[in-house]
């Protein structure tokens, strides 16, 4: 017989044996877990249709007419993944990990109660989610970089309107050409204190924020590169002042354990914000009324504050877009850094409602 034919026959034999082994394993009981011997345990009967009849011995429950053992539930300890198991009693599944409730970052109440804010957060989270690469992350407004936000803000003409939903937003204005690009002479200690005092009014909102947008704008006139540098310097200054306010009195470890992320980005000067839009978006409530709480108009001294307040309250001036006064106001309004404290990111779980508290609300008296 030809050698090649012998080799082929040998291969065919091995193949046939392998197939036979696979078929045998598939149809036989080999490898199956043996069924535990239960014949020694007497079958306990029950009747699930009545309360009395449904009672079974400990660790058994009534299934139709038979008491069957309660199968142990696989639970996971703190820190373990809860994608495929339940968390131990007292733990909650948070960001795919079993976590003690005290360590869970629950959704702040304001984000639950304020529908407009809740929608804005969901929109931000959705926008951010579309730019993310990691599909394992939860939809959150906290995972985008400042560069992402800058792109999102530039792509979306309605971005300002979206930010108008965030309570506690404020706007810090700067004089022309300040801070200097090549010197640290501005702000003077007096001006710095003035700015700090006004920002301190927002300390509660800032401290409660999960992240803070610091958005730089610059006056539309002048060289765009200079304007950009000015915007960056203003953002740097303001993020330093915000940190000084938020972390006042804290040690470095206290500060860094609860650091609030500041995302600063600038918007191009070829898309300035109009004074009328600016007032409606940042200074007034979404409904059009005055805002409750500290004045969102922050400036470097009292005189400038009064000028801004008076100019922005002047309806005639806001509409006279071809006048020199309007141009001056437009430049001043855009020499601004907008500060938007974001109180929630969209991925926080809702705190479980206390049933008793809910019930108590319904009890008269």
């Amino acid at each position, binding site marked *: 017989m030809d050698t090649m034919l012998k080799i082929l026959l040998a291969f065919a034999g091995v193949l046939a044996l392998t197939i036979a082994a696979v078929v045998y394993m598939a149809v036989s009981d080999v490898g199956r877990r043996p069924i535990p011997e239960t014949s020694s345990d007497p079958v306990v009967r029950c009747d699930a249709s009545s309360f009395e009849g449904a009672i079974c011995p400990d660790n058994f429950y009534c299934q139709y007419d038979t008491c069957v053992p309660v199968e142990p539930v696989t639970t996971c300890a703190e820190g373990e993944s809860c994608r495929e198991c339940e968390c131990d009693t007292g733990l909650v599944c948070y960001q795919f990990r079993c976590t003690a409730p005290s360590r869970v970052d629950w959704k702040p109440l304001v984000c639950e109660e304020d529908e407009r804010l809740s929608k804005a957060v969901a929109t931000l989270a959705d926008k951010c989610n579309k730019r*993310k690469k*990691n599909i394992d*992350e939860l939809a*959150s407004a*906290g*995972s*985008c*970089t*400042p*560069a*992402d936000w800058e*792109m999102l803000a530039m792509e979306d003409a309605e971005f300002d309107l979206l930010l108008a939903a965030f309570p506690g937003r404020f706007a810090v204005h700067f004089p022309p050409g300040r*801070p200097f690009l090549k010197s*640290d002479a501005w*702000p003077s200690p007096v001006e*710095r204190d003035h700015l700090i005092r006004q920002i301190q009014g927002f300390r509660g909102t800032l401290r409660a924020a999960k992240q803070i947008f*610091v958005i730089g704008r610059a006056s539309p006139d002048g060289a765009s590169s200079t304007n950009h540098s000015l915007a960056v*310097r203003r953002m*740097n*200054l303001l*993020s*330093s*002042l915000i*940190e*000084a306010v938020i972390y006042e009195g804290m*040690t*470095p*470890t*206290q500060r*860094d*354990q609860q*650091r609030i*992320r*500041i*995302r*600063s980005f600038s918007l191009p000067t070829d898309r300035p914000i109009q004074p009328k839009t600016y007032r409606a978006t940042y200074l007034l409530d979404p409904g059009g009324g005055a805002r409750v709480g500290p004045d969102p108009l922050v400036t470097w001294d009292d005189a400038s504050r009064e000028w801004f307040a008076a100019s922005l309250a002047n309806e005639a001036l806001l509409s006279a877009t071809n006048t020199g006064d309007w141009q001056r106001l437009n430049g001043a309004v855009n020499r601004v850094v907008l500060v938007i404290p974001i109180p929630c*990111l969209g*991925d926080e779980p809702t705190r479980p409602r206390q049933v008793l508290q809910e019930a108590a609300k319904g009890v008269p008296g």
Partner: protein
Amino acid sequence: MTTGQTSVFLRLLDVQRIAAAFCALFGLVGIGLSIHLTRLKFQMLYTPCKSAYGGCRVGGLTCDDALGSSWSMVLGMPISVWGAGFYLTITVAAAMVLRRDSFGGTAANLLIALTMFAVLVSAALAGYTAVALPSPCPFCMALYAVAVLALVSAWLAWRPPGGTWLTFRQMAQERLADALDGVFALSLVMVASTGIQALGYHGFRNLVDAQDGCPELAEDLPEATIHAGAGSPRAILALFVDMTCSKCLSEFKRLGSALRDEQFPVPVQLWIYHMPRQACDTSAFPDTWDRKDNDAANNNACLAALAAECMEKLEGRGFLLMDGMFALHGERQASAALFTPERIANRAVELGMNIDPDDPHNPLFRCIDGDKEVLERITAHQKYSDRPGFMPPTVLVYRAEAGALDLRRKPLVANANTSLNTILDYVRTQAEAELQP
């Protein structure tokens, strides 16, 4: 317009020649982009201090990953050199189509074959970029687009609507000699253009100094306490890092591995200097400090620097803690700080430090919160790196004398763009330098 009218119109329009002209134009664009990429790669390799980090930056895209990848060099030359040669060949082939009946009328066939090859190579590179590289390179992507456009125009030049064309089968049967003539001529163009570029590329290497554009150092280095390496070094590498920066992680790993694997030609020590882009002592820097980076601050760059210095002070294991903290980059969560007191304390415990991470007054936290000496040292490092404008990471290669810096000789400066071979050369140069009496 009827079908007949359309075909007359197309014939009058001479689609073939217009398409060939466009193809030549795309070829020229490809040459320009390739030469630009070669220039960036040359700067990265031979004048790293002149090269911007990221190689180039267009929006959020950088060339750094593409130019630094193993696929960026083919046979000892940047792939863009081969690209420029190839696009020149395409341009010449397109020009030949413009001249009627070049290579016996086979020029259009050769052009379509060349552009198809360009698209195939571009597709392979684009696939590699998508799978293996964190960031695509904008100029490379522009080149891929150029290849596709060149293919479309070459297709129109080969099979003009309403015109006749020569199939490849016909070419092989009837005009093989002409086609081979064309292949030979175009190969000559490719070989000559690549050869000239290769000569220029390697020739320029001898005309530049790797120290070109590196920052001038004005004063003596401040004190550093975290040292690693040989007991009696002949060279000292001062590594300036911000622990939140990913390039610093790569540099720390690269130099640490070289040290561990004894890749340096002489015994060396690595000294750690901190340059967190965040004011650790806010009273020492103005509020408008330009070097501040919100990403570094959001990830607690100062905390990491303070922890490393404190670990060195308390346990003599600052370098090890840095290694452990850099490892946290692998567990980065987008919405949480990279370094927190808790995460750092846990790392310290893993290294055998006997502290309770949950105790806010443990020795490590007490040092971080209140040790003025440590804070002043980090501030001195920051100020030293601030004036010449170091980018993290920066490496200063010093000559060493009796285990200390030999300040009589200027250090050589390297950064993340500098290749390890160049750093090894710097170490050898410094160690073997003859000092003037």
